């Protein structure tokens, strides 16, 4: 029933980002680079998971791809056009093909607008339908996301978080976009409601053939829904690959640490916890002072002198995986030895 093409991305990607860099000025005149030279591709109908911890730049990257934040450098090709070269009306015209769903639907939907109007609005803005047609399309979309007609006059304050996220999805899909950036779409929901929304995302993808950039800090959730996964750390993608391969054989020490840190609700959880704490030390460093060389080196149990000075390149690691680590082969073959747990080396 799924129309999703197999990973990796087919010959003509839907979106192709090259060396996208975003810079922000912060107080005190400092500049941070939350997205630093990121390249990625998303195929038509493909779901690319983008995982990483808070502050790694994954949300900023999602916004930069849609030109909600303008990149300071790099190009974003989408449906044959370079979005970074577009502005004004031509860029607006592209927006119907690329939508976004945020983590907190209560903060991103107009509280005074009736639900049906919220879903109609993109059709009106892009002049895709007259009033009656828009109303009909909105009702249809609301039905598809599992909201009965009774909701169409309600306002956001009368709906639960799960229902509102369905509204946000209906609104995002009503213009039949080719790509939806889903930025932590289930993270604010109760676990019992999370599963409903995830299943809905899968159904909608099958029905419309839409591609998702699925941004999540939750690895298990990203794994569940993604064809391919990219792992981000401090503004850079450190590893990327087909989902099953990446989770079966994580090559980058950071990916290995992330995967090991997801506590399985099983009987080995206690041992797993101890192992995870040994594998990753410290906290994510500040973007204000990203470490030189490989940005992961202060936390990496395999780090050597070279890692402190030289930034690793992205290298193919077989099976469609790409990894940015000087020593991934030595780590994979077991010839690189991890340092014993540096429990108290966190940087603030």
């Amino acid at each position, binding site marked *: 029933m799924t129309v999703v093409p197999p990973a990796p991305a087919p010959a003509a990607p839907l979106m192709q980002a090259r060396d996208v860099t975003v810079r922000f000025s912060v107080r005190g005149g400092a500049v941070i680079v939350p997205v630093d030279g990121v390249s990625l591709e998303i195929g038509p109908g493909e779901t690319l998971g983008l995982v990483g911890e808070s502050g790694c730049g994954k949300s900023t990257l999602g916004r930069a791809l849609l030109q909600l934040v303008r990149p300071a450098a790099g190009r974003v090709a989408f449906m044959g056009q370079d979005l970074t070269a577009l502005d004004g009306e031509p860029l607006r015209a592209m927006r119907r093909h690329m939508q976004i769903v945020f983590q907190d639907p209560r903060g991103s939907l107009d509280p005074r607008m009736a639900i049906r109007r919220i879903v109609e609005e993109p059709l009106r803005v892009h002049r895709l339908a007259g009033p009656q047609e828009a109303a009909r399309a909105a009702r249809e979309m609301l039905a598809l996301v599992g909201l009965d007609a009774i909701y169409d006059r309600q306002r956001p304050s009368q709906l639960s978080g799960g229902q509102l996220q369905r509204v946000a999805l209906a609104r995002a899909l009503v213009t039949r976009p080719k790509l939806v950036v889903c930025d932590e779409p289930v993270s604010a929901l109760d676990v019992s409601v999370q*599963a409903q929304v995830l299943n809905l995302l*899968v159904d909608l993808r099958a029905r419309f053939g839409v591609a998702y950039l699925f941004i999540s800090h939750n*690895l*298990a959730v990203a794994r569940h829904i993604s064809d391919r996964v990219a792992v981000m750390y401090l503004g850079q993608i450190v590893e990327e690959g087909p989902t099953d391969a990446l989770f079966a054989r994580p090559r980058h020490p950071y990916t290995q640490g992330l995967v090991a840190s*997801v506590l399985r*609700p099983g009987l080995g959880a206690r041992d797993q916890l101890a192992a995870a704490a040994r594998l990753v030390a410290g906290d994510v460093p500040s973007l204000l002072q990203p470490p030189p060389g490989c940005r992961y080196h202060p936390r990496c149990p395999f780090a050597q002198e070279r890692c402190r000075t030289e930034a690793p390149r992205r290298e193919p690691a077989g099976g469609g995986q790409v990894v940015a680590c000087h020593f991934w082969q030595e780590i994979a073959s077991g010839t690189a030895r991890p340092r014993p747990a540096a429990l108290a*080396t966190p940087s603030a």
Partner: protein
Amino acid sequence: MIQEPLLDVRNLRVRFETPRGLLRAVDDVSFSVAPRETVGIVGESGSGKSVTMLSVLRLFPPLARVAVSGQVLFEGTDLLRLSEAELREVRGAKIGMVFQDPLTSLNPALPVGEQIAESLRTHRGLSRVAARRRAEELLELVGIPDPARRADDLPYRFSGGMRQRIMIAIAIACEPKLLIADEPTSALDVTVQAQVLVLLERLQRELGMSLIMISHDLGVIAATSRRVLVMYGGWIVERGSVEEILERPGHPYSAALTRLVPDLDQPRDEPLVPIPGQPAPVVGPVGGCRFAARCAYVMDRCRQETPPAVALATEHISLCWLSADGVRPAPAPIPAGGRR
């Protein structure tokens, strides 16, 4: 092993008066915690898990119209009968608490060392100098590097994981007998979560504390607790060892919880099995089982009669008519390669 429990909560009932009616936040909740034991409480928002713990210390917002009944016996004393002044001797001294969000729990304008020292001066009567020295020791104990210098820093100078370590240092400053951790790692990144949980476990062992670990995440509960209480709609719907609850759940809600969340060991193409609807607050008069509206196994009786507490094994109890009929809900599908 008959041992006096450290904490013995009996028939705790907490109700809030709200504009929409009487909110039954916690209903007839009883459980105990033995010395040095870790008990996990799992549940979604509105299940009553946090309110249960706030009632233990009567930490309610100042304007809450709240009625609490039952008994909260701590070392044999009923905390619900203590005066506010007497209770202050318990809070932070004998019972410590760690909350989800360290940034809102810490005073943003006070150096962290002073926040730790404050508790020591109040409860232990330490001098300024002695409290400061002890605060630095505590920062070191929870893994803050260079504690003598960092003690003078304000909270914003620390990362999320570091702030939670500081919260823990404050909570354990007076060496409490019981530490209540309410979603202590839910706001933290996954790689930091493991470190904080390991820290909590180490401190518990070294200080001989009991620990109540509240979480919506079964992985966190499984990694830290041996006994677990599953809460829903203000009730403890199931209790038992972590093994029993994960492998042989008796209550349909617990069984569903084990299947809800994507699991790294699950085949990816398997659709998740959600619980329909959403958790709803229990307001106004209610009859029958509070999970009935969302339960895949619901029977007529469930909508009318309060379910009985059915013993399924030693210390494994399920509050469910299905259990009374001797039926188990379908267990979580066992992934290829077995559940780890």
